[in-house]
């Protein structure tokens, strides 16, 4: 499963609000909020977030094996 915990840590570390990220990236606030619950997304949205934050994909997401 791809999880986005690092995204929210990144936002906190850089003092960026989710609303600011939404405005800068063009990704809706509700979708960003849903990422907390590991909502499935795609590389297009990851690209928008990376572009807005000027970071690499691995700075905001990680893979973790799913538990049975």
């Amino acid at each position, binding site marked *: 499963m791809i999880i986005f915990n690092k995204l929210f840590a990144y936002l906190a570390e850089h003092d960026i609000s989710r609303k600011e990220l939404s405005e800068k990236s063009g990704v809706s606030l509700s979708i960003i909020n849903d990422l907390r619950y590991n909502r*499935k997304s795609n*590389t297009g949205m990851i690209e928008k977030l990376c572009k807005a934050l000027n970071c690499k994909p691995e700075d905001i997401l990680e893979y973790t*094996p799913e538990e*049975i």
Partner: protein
Amino acid sequence: MQQLSLKAGFQNERTLSSIASRHQHITTGTLSRLCEILECKPGDIFEFVEEADRQKHKRIYVREDWQYSSDDYVVVNWERLLSDIKAAGYSEAKFSLALGKANNYLALKKNRKYTQKVLLKEMTDLLGKPFEEYI
């Protein structure tokens, strides 16, 4: 690519072809599946290329230095391996922990048709047996 598609459970090569062609987005579900099969991190197979650095393509790239070799994977005789793990006094969870993995690691791996050869060798080394016995 066909073999990797089969291992990843994709119905055809279209998904991987889409990635390779660098013109299509893929879902995080697909990305997750690739990371699972290849036992790698997203950053090992994907990178974000800044606008200024890319000329024609506008998507996240598959790393050009990434290579896949089907020789790295084997079909494991899990029945025999699990039997020997049990005979050595390990539960699946304890054996996973002995490998330095999460306690559900073996439970996840045993359901996969293909296993990394290097992982099989780690497991058989722990049992003190040659890995060829389990292929």
